[in-house]
Structures are given as structure tokens and as C-alpha cells.
């Protein structure tokens, strides 16, 4: 499950992470908010902007991660953009990830071409660096990305941004199944546009699991609008994705 750190507010994220674990999440991907998140669709753009407006910082994100780690052994991965990480200082950042109990890092605007300094620091501080593959990634490149990735490989379901409408599900299944054959060294997880239990069952059958993010943000927004209980809604949404 993905959630932007600082959303719906900086004080709520930690409790919602714990709720997601209780409801059956197998790992948590925590978003580091950025002003210009160019791989994100509307929901995660909005959650990121709101977190920043409410004063979210890199330090607070790392503290949230560390607080979660105190009471949980669930895998915890940070997702964000190159600039805030570089601004923090690569060495400092990976060291802080390690001491906060973070297991891995996803940087959607750092393809393998630009990854060398990131890989060096990740290796040094024992943090998994997770690269993405897309339906347009050629086969030999898939294998290269698999070799450079650690933790897992993130298969983007569709050429597009997070929360995208998925095309014909059979196309996605065919693509994921063929990528699964090439990715030998790592588990392959599928994300972007996955919303329902039906999606999860369909795509998990040809991969090692699914990542849901934008739809969770939408659920939280809808619950707020209806003045409902966000925590309860998150619990039931995650539970339904996992167990139907």
C-alpha cells in the first residue's frame, strides 16, 4: 500500500500506516512529497501538495518511518523524486534511511542511466534500490534493470502516470506475464491504476504482488468529503483488497 507522508495531515500518516498493516498490507510504500511530481496523476499530486502545504519535510518523513519501524517489522519503502534526496545529500539521506529502518527506495525520475551515485550509496548503507520497468521497456533493458535492482522490480502497468485508467486488462496481464519471465533476480510487483480486489487478483496471478496508491488517496478524499471516519475506511479498503 502506498500513502503520501503528511497526508491527509502530518499527524495522521503514522496511524494510517499501522492501520494498513493491521488490515493486511504486506508492505508500505511511503511517499516523500515533492512540488513537481511528474510521474503522478491527480490524486497523488493533490496529496503531495497538501502534505507540503501542511509543513511536511524530509526530516519529518524520516521520523515517521522510524516511528513506524519501532512497532513493526513490515517492509517499508520510500518513494520520491531525485531533487529533495539530492538536496538532503545522497550520503546523508541513505544513512538516515538505514537508521530509520527503511528497507528500500523508489525514485521514478532516476532511470538506470542516472543511477550510479544512488546505487553506490544504497549499497554502502544496505538500502534496496528499486527500479521501474514499463510496457515500453525492451527485453534486454528489462534484464539490465533486473540486475541493477534490489528488493523488487516495479512493473508500471501502463504507459502513463499513477492512477491512470488501465487499458484492456488482458493486455496488462500479457505484458506483466512476459516481464515476469525476464525478471529473474527479483520479485516483480505491479502498480499504477490498480483499484479493486478484482484487479489485485488478476495481476497478482502473473506477478508477485500489486501496489495500490492513488485509489487509497481517492478513498480518503471521498471519506473526508462525506465526513466519514478515514481510519475505518482505510482499514476496510485495505482489507477488501487483500481478502475480498
Amino acid at each position, binding site marked *: 500500500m502506498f500513502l503520501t507522508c503528511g497526508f491527509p495531515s502530518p499527524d495522521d500518516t503514522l496511524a494510517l500506516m499501522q492501520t494498513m498493516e493491521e488490515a493486511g498490507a504486506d508492505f508500505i510504500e511511503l511517499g516523500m512529497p515533492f*512540488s513537481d511530481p511528474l510521474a503522478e496523476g491527480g490524486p497523488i499530486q493533490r496529496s503531495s501538495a497538501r502534505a507540503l502545504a501542511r509543513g511536511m519535510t524530509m526530516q519529518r518523513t524520516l521520523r515517521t518511518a522510524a516511528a513506524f519501524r519501532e512497532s513493526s517489522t513490515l517492509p517499508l519503502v520510500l518513494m520520491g523524486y*531525485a531533487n*529533495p534526496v539530492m*538536496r538532503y545529500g545522497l550520503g546523508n539521506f541513505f544513512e538516515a534511511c538505514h537508521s530509520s529502518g527503511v528497507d528500500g527506495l523508489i525514485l521514478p525520475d532516476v532511470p538506470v*542511466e542516472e543511477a550510479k551515485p544512488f546505487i553506490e550509496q544504497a549499497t554502502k548503507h544496505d538500502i534496496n534500490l528499486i527500479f521501474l520497468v514499463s510496457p*515500453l521497456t525492451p527485453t534486454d533493458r528489462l534484464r539490465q534493470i533486473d540486475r541493477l535492482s534490489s528488493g523488487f522490480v516495479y512493473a508500471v502497468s501502463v504507459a*502513463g502516470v499513477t492512477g491512470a485508467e488501465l487499458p484492456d486488462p488482458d493486455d496488462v496481464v500479457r505484458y506483466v506475464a512476459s516481464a515476469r519471465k525476464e525478471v529473474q533476480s527479483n520479485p516483480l510487483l505491479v502498480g499504477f491504476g490498480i483499484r479493486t480486489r478484482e484487479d489485485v487478483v488478476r495481476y497478482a496471478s502473473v506477478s508477485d504482488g500489486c501496489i495500490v496508491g492513488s485509489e487509497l488517496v481517492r478513498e480518503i478524499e471521498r471519506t473526508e468529503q462525506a465526513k466519514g471516519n478515514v481510519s475505518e475506511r482505510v482499514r476496510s479498503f485495505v482489507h477488501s483488497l487483500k481478502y475480498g
Partner: protein
Amino acid sequence: MTYNAPDSTGHFGPYGGQFVPETLIPALNELKAAYRDAARDDSFQDDLSVMLRDYVGRPTALTFASRLTEAFGGARIYLKREDLCHTGAHKINNTVGQILLARRMGKRRIIAETGAGQHGVATATVCARFGMTCVVYMGAEDMKRQQLNVLRMRLLGAEVRPATSGSRTLKDATNEAIRDWVTNVRNTFYIIGSVVGPHPYPMMVRDFHAIIGRETSRQLQEQVGRDAPDVLLACVGGGSNAIGLYYPFLDRSDVRCIGVEASGEGLDGRHAATLTLGEPGVLHGALSYLLQDSEGQVQLAHSISAGLDYPGVGPEHAWLKDSGRVEYMSATDSEAVRALEQVSELEGIIPALETAHAFARLPDIAAGMSPSDIVVVNCSGRGDKDMGTISQYIQERDQ
């Protein structure tokens, strides 16, 4: 030393590169290969030359500015008249090049981002010329400031989509254009409007504008018997008109290159002086100088000129700054408007607000030089599009 940047991975020293989602990497590789082939293909170069001559109106004039020269009492001042290009600015040099490349690659749908609207108009224009579908992303705030250009794009058959996120200006329009490209990359060609973005864009856009500098050299030879001036002066937002002017002269250490950024309300207020006050960072696919806070969040730029109102700058400029080859200065909103008034009155040329920033530093530079010296100013665009902004500014100033 021969100037030879970027390297094969698209880096200018430490700057540039390809900081984009994986989905775009195959498209950038395809573009790189197509551009390499086209650059060596005589028939492509012929098509480009014919379009630039018969449609854009090149070569543009090199005009001796006798009254500015007299007024400043120093170097002789020449203006490279990119304001005379079809659509009113240098931007079309690049859109003509990229649309020919898009056709060659079989892409039928064109997208672009625009700030002041000049690049959007230049893109919509070549799309109309070749019957291509055109979508232009423009910040909702910029659409208000530049209504005439929105109308022009629509008349040219383009769809103008407002970018409503963030500061609702060029930065956000560029985010939206990249998101569109990620989604529609199979059939869509993204015509970037400046020397920014992931490799190969900064190199390719520079190459398409380098005709500005090449013509300048030839025209100086014809007019004064020298193939290079002492000083080249241009405004810098993303930096496309400046790099186009400088590029053929970068190996000539006797040619001083100067870029002028927008310092808006002043360097201690809201500004867009990225090279002057920014620090290295990644935005829109490249590492370059960037206006950012201590957290690495991108800060909002400000300039009276929508075309300079951008918190980033082309990665080659970052490299040229660090290497000391180009000097970068800045001019405020009020300095730019005063320069615009002066050039209008003395030369009968109303420059764009962007261009006026270069003119604002001209008196200090020219006055200290001798009458045998030559300064070439890139008159990158004409000011018609800015009449609303200028009229409002002058009214408030003179109250």
C-alpha cells in the same frame, strides 16, 4: 580547445542527463537516433533550409542601431532581428526543426508547453502548416496574462489546455506536458520550447537555434569585415535564444558572451534569476541550476515577462556559468520596461519584455567600450504580445 558538449550521455560537465520516468527512456533513445540520422541527412537539411527561408523569413536582418550607439557613446551596437521571424520571435527556428523530425519519425500528434505563448504559437503554426494535431499546455495564470497568444493558438487550430496545478505557470505546464507524453508516447512527439528537458533536447534545440549565431557571423563579415563581435548579449529564461547566438562563437575566446536573467522585483524579492541565485538541482528531466528551498522543493519564479518566469534554466548554461565561458547578469522588471521604452523610442523597434532584459544591461556594457568595438544584442522577439502587460505596468508606475 574545441567546445564539444554534451557528451554521449547528454551531460554538460555534471549537468543535463535524463532524469525521467522509465517509460520515456525508449522514446528518448528513439529521438536521439532519429535526430542523429536527420542531422547527417542532406535531404532533411535541405527541407529545413527551405522552410527557414520561405516560411520563417530567414536570414533575419542584422541592424546597426545608430541611435542606441549614439546614446550610450561607446561600442557600435548591432541587433540580430529574430523579432522579424514569422510569429514574432526566434522560437520558430526550433519548432520548424522539430516538426520536420516528428514527420520523419511518423508521429502525428504534437504536444508542447508554453509560458509567454510564443513557443505555443510557434508550435501551433508549424502544426497548422503540416496538418498535425496540436495540444499546448499553458499555465492558467499565463493564459490570463497572454490572452492574445491563447487566441492565436486557437485560430491556428491548436487545443490549449490550462495547467491548474502549482503556480499555474510554465513550470506546471511543463509537468503537464511531460505527463501527457508519458501517457501518449507511442504516437506523440513532444516539441520542447527551450534548451531544457532531458537529453537530447538541450542539444537539439540549441542546434536548431545556432543559425542565429551563424548568420550573425556572416552578416558582420559582410557589413563590417569582421566575422565576430566583441560582445554577444542575450536574455536568458530557459536560454534558447542566448545559446543559439553564442554557440558558433564558444571556441572564440575573444568573444565575450553575456546572458541576462530576470530579477523581477529585485534579487532580494521575488525573481527568476536562476543562475544568479539558484543551486544545482533536478527539474523536468535535467540537472541544472534551480530555484529551490532548503528542502529541495522548487520555488516559484517571478518576472513581468512570462517567458522568463521559470525556476530552471538549460543545463548547458549551468555548465557555461561554472566554466566561466559565459557571464550572467540580471535585470529587474522596472529596468526591463525602461529599456523597452528606450529601444522603442530610439530605434523604432518594440522588443518583447523578455528581450528588454538584455537591453537593460546594454548601457553599462556598451558605454565602457571603444567605438571600434562591436556589441550584438539578440533582439529575440517583438513586443506586440506584451502590450496589455506593459500598459498596465506603466499606468501603475506613473500614477
